[in-house]
């Protein structure tokens, strides 16, 4: 009778996949985003140009389009859709919570690449919030560009970067729902499925999934606030 209660296991698994995609995409986005952010302020003009072009291209393309591109062009380039990482990690391919099948990988990669552009801009704005004299002083005692960034600029920019990065990670987690468009069975997919099967309970189902996403977002905000308080101390 109660669609959510009867299918709670499926709901939980679906959110598990959403968490998996968000965590993996988050790692990709943070690593790539910081590298791009560093390139964006590098003394090498080519580096700055590459990062700027990346941000401009990726940030101005709809996420769904990027997911469609990864999902449907990689097979054309010779990567067969039966490629997945399940065997590597010993994951059963019927596992709905932890599944690294081709579609999940493509969606996760696309989400990570897309979010990296926003991380890059958050990092860049944080770096720009530090007075230029700090970097000049670091360079003047003989630090290389990397040392200047790592030892002087980024530790100070860190505080300024946490709030926008928290927002970016929240947006990314919610954006993971777009993966339903390329056949990933995440939380949003499960929500649609339940709605299709239980047309009389759509409100309860919508609210349940909204609460689920909210819980994930609260967790990210909490981590963000914690890091912010630690940085202020």
């Amino acid at each position: 009778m109660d669609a959510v209660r009867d299918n709670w296991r499926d709901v939980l698994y679906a959110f598990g996949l959403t968490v998996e995609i968000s965590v993996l995409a988050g790692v990709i986005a943070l690593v790539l985003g910081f590298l791009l952010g560093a390139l964006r302020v590098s003394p090498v003009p080519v580096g700055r140009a590459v990062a700027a072009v990346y941000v401009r291209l990726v940030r101005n393309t709809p996420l769904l389009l990027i997911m469609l591109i990864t999902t449907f062009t990689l097979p054309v380039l010779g990567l067969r859709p039966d490629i997945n990482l399940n065997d590597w990690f010993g994951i059963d391919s019927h596992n709905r919570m932890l599944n690294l099948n081709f579609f999940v990988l493509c969606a996760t990669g696309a989400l990570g690449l897309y979010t990296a552009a926003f991380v890059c801009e958050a990092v860049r704005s944080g770096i720009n919030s530090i007075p230029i004299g700090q970097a000049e002083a670091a360079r003047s005692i003989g630090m290389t560009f990397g040392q200047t960034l790592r030892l002087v600029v980024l530790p100070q920019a860190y505080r300024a970067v946490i709030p926008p990065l928290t927002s970016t990670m929240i947006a990314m987690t919610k954006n993971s729902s777009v993966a339903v468009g390329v056949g990933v069975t995440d939380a949003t997919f499960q929500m649609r499925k339940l709605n299709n099967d239980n047309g009389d309970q759509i409100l309860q189902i919508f609210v349940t999934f909204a609460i689920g996403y909210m819980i994930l977002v609260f967790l990210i905000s909490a981590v963000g606030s914690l890091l912010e308080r630690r940085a202020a101390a």
Partner: protein
Amino acid sequence: MTEQLGLVVLDHVNKWYGQTQALKDINLSIARGEVVVVIGPSGSGKSTLCRTINRLETINEGTITLDGRPLPAEGKALAALRADVGMVFQSFNLFAHKTVLENVTLGPIKVRGLDKAAAEKKARELLDRVGVAGHAEKYPAQLSGGQQQRVAIARALAMDPEVMLFDEPTSALDPEMIKEVLDVMVGLAKQGMTMVVVTHEMGFARTAADRVVFMADGAIVEEAAPEQFFTNPSTDRAKDFLGKVLQH
């Protein structure tokens, strides 16, 4: 006798910011141990000149050599060169997230590869020398401007520089703090440090300079020993400038 080559030599240096020429055909040779004071009105290019010597500003034409070596382009070689050129800024630019002691040890440890104990020993000696030894564990924001600037001098000295550049080191300071910074600089000059000092402190120029370089509109207008420059400047531009700054 062979010609004495300068430690820092600027040869036909030109620099433009868009249409405006910031440096006009600058030729300047600074000998080892010499103290050169650069004065001139605002916008005359004196800070720019100072900053080109460690390539915080790039130049469009001409050459700058340090100890016979031309300034390298960006990269490790430039970083290595900058380690040998101390720089003191108008706004101090101490690393805000590091203690005073860490400010002075960061370069020796990360750039020179000194171990922490040796770097700290040396740093404490230098902080003592500039009179801020009691503040080693504080953060820059807890110090007065004059104290911060003296820490900045210690930070530069910790790298054992061949030459020290001072870009208006007292311009952001209260009058009573100017003296404590100038005293440290006079002490350095007496110990034989090669110094290029951009300043508005005419008293310092008179007492500590071996040579005064007067700049206006991006060019070196006059160069002379301080006594001669202040008592009998040879150009009208310098007379006009001195008339304005010395009348009070």
